[in-house]
């Protein structure tokens, strides 16, 4: 029996035609518009420093070295803190979802894990192995 990788033909590709069609439409639209030349940031712009200043809502002029120019931006300190809380909540949610169920504790949304664990033990020849059967003589 071969075990080589095979082309994944799951599902239908017809629905994907919508994505291809959307790309064609977007391409036609983008080719039809013309934007003015980009303003850019200038030669000596300290982009990373300015980003840090925008994130922590401090005046970028304080961070600039000699010859560096600040890039204009807004303060995002509150948004930064809110995103931090969101990431913390997401981490807690991920840990809660990934937590493996303890024996007898109903953690997994209506799943009786206790019987599953016993069945697995029985299949391995543990308690209840007589009922579970097996291929040993």
């Amino acid at each position: 029996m071969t075990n080589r990788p095979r082309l994944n033909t799951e599902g239908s590709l017809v629905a994907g035609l919508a994505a291809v069609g959307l790309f064609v439409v977007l391409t036609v639209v983008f080719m039809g518009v013309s934007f003015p030349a980009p303003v850019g940031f200038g030669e000596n712009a300290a982009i990373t420093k300015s980003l840090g200043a925008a994130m922590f809502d401090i005046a970028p002029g304080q961070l600039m070295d000699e010859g560096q120019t600040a890039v204009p931006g807004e303060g995002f300190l509150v948004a930064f803190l809110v995103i931090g809380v969101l990431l913390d909540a997401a981490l807690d949610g991920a840990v809660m979802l990934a937590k493996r169920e303890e024996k007898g504790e109903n953690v997994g949304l209506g799943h009786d894990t206790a019987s599953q664990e016993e069945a697995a033990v029985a299949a391995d020849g543990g308690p209840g192995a007589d009922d579970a059967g097996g291929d040993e003589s």
Partner: protein
Amino acid sequence: MIPAESYLLLSAAVFCIGLFGVLTRRNALIFLMSVELMLNAANINFVAFSLQHGNLTGQVFALFGMAIAAAEVAIGIGIILVLYRNFSDVDVTKATTMRW
């Protein structure tokens, strides 16, 4: 300097690849990766228009977008884990009902 239209085309291509994955694939992990592609397409637009307008706001928004994507992946992988535990599969079409 690269014109904004090129960035828009790149962004549209990345977004449509992600959309193609969402529409055609059933594996939840590939589904999640496709959604990430769509989020990254938005980030490309943010950075491109930041350059276009000479303002850093777009780049800051792109950073926030990455943080949102990270939070989404954390929750998404947790959901996929529960999906696998309950259905022994990561096929998104299997979990079509809310009953167990």
